[in-house]
């Protein structure tokens, strides 16, 4: 197994259980390769934290004011039209 395959399996293992054969081959590679071991630690760290991104995202982005006014008009028009159709 080379590093390209090893990192492929590491990334796969973050979502799915590897087969026993894959796990054994990966473990053997990781024992000998410190770069892939680092990749595993650091990539797992990123992966574990991606789900929290929403919670910590930078400031709330607001919708453009003009667009919002336009949207409000459209919603109002729709509601007024449908109540006039009675």
């Amino acid at each position, binding site marked *: 197994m*080379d590093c390209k*395959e090893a990192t492929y399996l590491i990334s796969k293992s973050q979502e799915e259980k590897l087969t026993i054969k894959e796990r054994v081959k990966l473990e053997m590679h990781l024992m000998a390769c410190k770069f892939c071991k680092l990749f595993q630690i650091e990539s797992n760290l*990123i992966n574990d934290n991606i789900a929290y*991104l929403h919670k910590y995202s*930078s400031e709330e982005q607001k919708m453009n004011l003009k667009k919002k006014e336009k949207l409000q008009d459209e919603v109002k028009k729709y509601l007024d039209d449908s109540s006039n159709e009675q």
Partner: protein
Amino acid sequence: MLTLNNMEALKTQNKINPYQWVNLYADYLFNYAIMQVKSSEIAEDLVQDTFMSALKSIKNFNGKSGERTWLTSILKNKIIDHYRKKSNQCEILINERSEDYDNSDHFFETEANKRGTWTSEARPNVWNFEDRTPVENKEFYEILQSCLGKLPESWAAVFSLKNIEDFNSKEICKELNISSSNYWVIMHRSKLQLRECMEKNWMNV
């Protein structure tokens, strides 16, 4: 069709008031959308579509979930549709057997005697955490967000679907109509890029 009478009924039963929607929820929905699609124009369109669909299906609102939750669930579907359209246009495909995947990246050697090993420029370095554990660290998340933003949009779509609906790989492949080997190739490439981007930007702050 929505009539004034059943509008009134809905309002009192479920505390729903579409006249206030834009005022109350447009920014929230826009912010949600832009986290997933990156372009503010597309995010605005998605919010508009969401309100219009909501108005048309207002009688399906059962009042069990709050207005905002209900609108957000409609928006989620709009985002998924958006990505589905994109993947139908084949923008998402990278072929694992293509020259692209094998040769044009800088991560791994391609010469016969050391094929598939890390190139010296791409080798991971040790990350010094010390006092900068990522948990609760706003900076970490800001840089992660910007690194995700640097991925090709179609790859970021795959991440988005995972986060929006907690889809697993099979469901994402089905939603986006991609093969599972293609999915794993996209994930592999994305994670190599993300880790590298975090190392360059987070560790050097």
